[in-house]
């Protein structure tokens, strides 16, 4: 299954990163041709999510769950793949619901920031997959320079888990509180 996972994984990577390219172009340009690309962003993202879901499912078939979750690199790849898939799916839904509004005024910088985070997560997920199959890249090494050795499991301490849950609640509350205002 490993070869099929590798094969299929390149589709969501290409689709999501193309979407990010369009987001970046739209952020910095109002040219007509760039504006027309805007409409293809959310379909690209959601197509990527579909392909990503398939790659994710195939990926989970490569090793027994008990084995892959004993490997720090395996755990990290699963975590990053889960983040990537969920993150871009949320981005796709936002793109579908908000369309051109995402790029209105200063909001385009929000779109650009979120897209940049998504692109970064895609790149890290891919490089972890490469490391898992025995072909680590410079990205793998670079991550250790900024504080994360990918051969150790990425987990956060219990108190930070609580902060995450609290943060999630605060974000939802802020959303409902803020939407009362028109601008």
């Amino acid at each position, binding site marked *: 299954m490993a070869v099929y996972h590798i094969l299929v994984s390149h589709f969501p990577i290409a689709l999501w990163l193309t979407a990010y390219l369009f987001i970046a172009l739209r952020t910095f340009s109002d040219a007509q041709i760039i504006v027309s690309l805007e409409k293809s962003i959310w379909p690209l993202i959601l197509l990527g999510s579909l392909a990503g879901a398939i790659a994710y499912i195939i990926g989970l078939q490569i090793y027994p769950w008990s084995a892959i*979750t004993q*490997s720090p690199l395996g755990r990290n790849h699963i975590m990053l793949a889960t983040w990537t898939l969920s993150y871009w799916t949320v981005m796709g839904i936002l793109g579908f619901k908000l369309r051109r509004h995402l790029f209105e005024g200063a909001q385009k910088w929000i779109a650009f920031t979120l897209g940049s985070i998504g692109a970064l997560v895609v790149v890290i997920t891919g490089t972890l997959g490469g490391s898992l199959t025995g072909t680590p890249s410079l990205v793998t090494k670079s991550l250790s320079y900024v504080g994360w050795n990918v051969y150790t499991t990425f987990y956060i301490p219990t108190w930070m888990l609580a902060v995450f849950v609290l943060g999630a609640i605060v974000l939802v509350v802020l959303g409902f509180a803020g939407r009362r*205002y028109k601008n």
Partner: protein
Amino acid sequence: MRRTYLAVSVAIFAGLLVAAWVTHDTGIKINDPENNIFIPTELTTTLQVKASYDNENIYFRYRWPVVRPSLFHDVLVYRDGNWEREKGGVGPSENFLNEDRVSMMIDDGSVPLFSRYGGYITIGDRLTTFTGAPKGGDERTKYLPDTRTDPNNFDSVKAESDLDILREAGYFIDLWQWRSSRSNPVGLGDDGFVAEERSGDQGVGPYYTNWDKELNQPKFMFDQQVTGQNALNFDDVVAGNYNFDDAYYLSDATAIAFDPNIEWKNGDTIPRRMLRAEEGSRGDVVQPSASRWEDGYWDVTLVRQLDTGNPLDDKIFRDKGSYDLAFAVFRNASTMRWHYVSLPMSLGLETDAQLVASKFAGDAPGWEQDWTEVKMFYPGQVSWGRLTDPKTHPGADKIAERVPVAYRHSEKQLALYGVEVEFAGAIYNQWLLTLFASLLLIVAMGININLLITRRES
């Protein structure tokens, strides 16, 4: 106002990501001596090796960093009328009561997989000092997989006749050892093996226990006339105030029978090991002279006959021959599994290999060749059973295909993996919780953005 909410939300989201990055990998990997868990501060180090031989003998020279040499192993300390044993425990000994060591495993190709996986193949079922190992009883030492009917069951040792056949076929690993306390002062090494157990070769080893069980007292003490003392001082032992010029060890030359009538005082200290001349096959590995620690490094040389005449105990070296080695060093007063090990490396006697032994003429090697640097790493608690089980190791299929460990893993990587295995259950749970919490955060951020993005009229 809505934009302010949005900006604050994005700042919170980004802040949480940064906080997660900064705090990750904390809160779990905590030393737990009760469960035999201690993680060394340094996970890797370097051993330097040279090898030379002539028509009779083969010499290995080892050099590795040690901040403070540990000249003692366990000692007997007099306190209020009793002699009490003081020794190191889990991890490094605060009192420096674990000796420094270097050991070398040797195979000539007779042990399948040793050249690919080195010492990993000797780490069997719940060995002594592993978390969860049975307490009490005999030490559960390293062993080779084929000496068991079930390699993952320590107690399933094959019948003596089967073990004899394996030994005749060369299915054992030669094990040389040097100990800073229990062999070095008298210029000896220690010749052993790993097969159905890790043990010494036939004969007499370089030390025995200085304790009279019946009389509950040491058997020997220092000879006042030779050493100027009957005992050492415990505070000086702990402080490292004894050096190579002092008579800090017991041997025929420095010891006499223990005299209980001496007015012993609290803190008087006698080594718990009596050193002696070796006999038989166990005495094959010796030193040209007692080794010394200098400028932060042990510099140790061991020598053995190429052909000891003990083929059932030793791997016989031949001119132009190729062999496989794996090393371990013990440093900073740590013992048992708190050591640094190497991956297997090839040795060639004047033939191409990772470590080439050069032939010399004359009385002793000149050591003109460069050092071969060997990366050493803390191995954690990784057993052969775990590595070969597809349910616990994603690379088990690669081992089945005989892919060498060095092809897929670096020493640093193996050290990190070894540490993670020591906390496997706790890390797995925390990882799952992190996964769910981060998913929650992503969804919450999506809801937030959807609610706060301003939609201008067309």
